[in-house]
């Protein structure tokens, strides 16, 4: 059977979703950590705050470069279609971008503690979640076989994990280079559920991602003939990469490493396991998004139109 690849979108869309996702995760991490013990966590909070606008900006630039007439991207601000998820998403992404820049500038200049700053963090959190959800909702709104209702869950979990992983990786590498004590435990803070520890953060988010990916795999191939055929084809083409890099490498191994660390009651995760986990999560997130972008554009042969 000769499947069709519509091929409308290339790796630039993946990179937009990947970098946008990192921005979402980095910003949320920065806000979360700033709520508690901001003095001792300042460097991590700052890395998160600076990463967010740069990452989202890179993503947006790549997205704009992919559309047929990049100069007309600005017209999406006034030619609005409320039925279109993308149309609403443009405002969410731009809103998020503005807030992350504002947030980064405030943290860079003075790191204030006032109601205005808290309001900015609240608005930013809303826009971060909305943008993270938008990435998946945008795909599922197009009604393609592999872009199902479960895609938003997979995307937002992957984005948050990738954002945290990127910030933590950067922090660990900077500490290693500057020969500072590498600290990933954040033990002086007191976030509920132990969220002050990266192991716990990763464990919870990766568990959500694992459940959403397994649900997606379970349901996508079983709903109707068209989905089953395309899903089978997708798995035949990319199943090995999907299982090894997304499922095992990007989710299960990091879950095991964090779980072992939690069971041992480790306060600090050593730099090497930290780096390994972060790289695996980042690779897994990128590969998952890229394969879904490719897979979503697979269509049945033209004869299957009845």
């Amino acid at each position: 059977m000769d499947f069709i690849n519509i091929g409308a979108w290339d790796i630039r869309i993946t990179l937009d979703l990947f970098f946008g996702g990192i921005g979402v995760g980095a910003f949320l991490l920065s806000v979360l950590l700033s709520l508690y013990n901001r003095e001792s966590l300042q460097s991590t909070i700052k890395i998160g705050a600076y990463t967010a606008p740069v990452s989202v900006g890179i993503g947006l630039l790549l997205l704009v470069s992919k559309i047929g007439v990049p100069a007309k991207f600005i017209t999406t601000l006034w030619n609005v279609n409320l039925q279109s998820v993308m149309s609403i998403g443009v405002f969410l992404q731009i809103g998020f971008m503005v807030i992350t820049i504002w947030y980064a500038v405030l943290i860079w200049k003075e790191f204030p503690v006032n109601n205005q700053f808290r309001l900015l963090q609240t608005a930013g959190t809303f826009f971060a979640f909305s943008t993270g959800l938008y990435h998946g909702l945008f795909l599922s709104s197009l009604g393609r076989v592999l872009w199902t209702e479960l895609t938003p869950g997979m995307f937002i979990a992957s984005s948050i994990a990738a954002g945290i992983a990127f910030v933590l990786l950067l922090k660990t590498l900077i500490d290693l280079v500057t020969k500072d004590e590498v600290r990933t435990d954040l033990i002086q803070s007191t976030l509920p559920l132990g969220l002050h520890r990266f192991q716990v953060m990763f464990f919870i988010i990766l568990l959500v991602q694992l459940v959403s990916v397994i649900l997606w795999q379970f349901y996508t191939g079983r709903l109707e003939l068209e989905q089953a055929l395309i899903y089978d084809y997708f798995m035949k083409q990319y199943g090995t990469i999907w299982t090894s890099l997304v499922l095992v490498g990007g989710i299960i191994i990091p879950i095991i490493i964090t779980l072992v660390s939690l069971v041992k009651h480790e306060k600090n995760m050593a730099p090497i396991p930290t780096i390994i986990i972060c790289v695996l999560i980042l690779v897994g997130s990128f590969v998952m998004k890229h394969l879904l972008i490719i897979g979503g554009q697979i269509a049945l042969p033209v004869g299957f139109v009845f």
Partner: protein
Amino acid sequence: MANYGMIIDLKNCVGCAGCDIACKTENNLDHDVHWSFHITETTGVFPNVGYRYIPKLCNHCENASCVKVCPTQAMYKDENGLTLHDPDKCIGCRSCELACPYNCISFNEDVQHQHQWQMDTEPLLEGITSSGKEIAEKFDNVPFPNYNPDRAKTYDGVRRKGIVEKCTLCDHRILDGKDPWCVVSCPADARIFGDFDDPKSEVSILLAENSAFQLLKSKGTKPKVYYINEF
């Protein structure tokens, strides 16, 4: 106000693809763009084999997914129920192309109707034919020799680079009270165009008298191209 659509009578259709060619000439389509096309399907094992030839075009769906997903309202429904495209608003995001379950939307990667042969200075047969460049220079301000200027009444005569394009059901001809060119040029009268809201129209009568099917009805797009008399 009408609700235009089409019926394709598969008993009459001989599979000549004349509609595909007619569409290309009427709408100035470049070689890799197809607003009207067809699919074929061979089924079974010899000697019990079947063959299907299904002409396809934009279904001008009532519940058009391309209209829903377009972020700039470049895809829209007009007052006559046609699904049309505004090139001025289109940014070329290609969401519509992915949302259309019928693969009826094309994207223009390059400038249309600009080909290498138009730059060739060598004639095909020395002393007998003109070179491509010489022919191109004689186009007299049109993009290519058989350009149809009527197309530009309601849509770009030749569509632009970086945006999508699709069948308009020859809205420029409908404007003049004429049928779409694929309907007129069909040698077997297999295509019937009309207003589904008019109970006396030929399409309404045919739809009432025949068992009809639509493509991918399960997608919920309510396509307005019906097929009758499949055998």
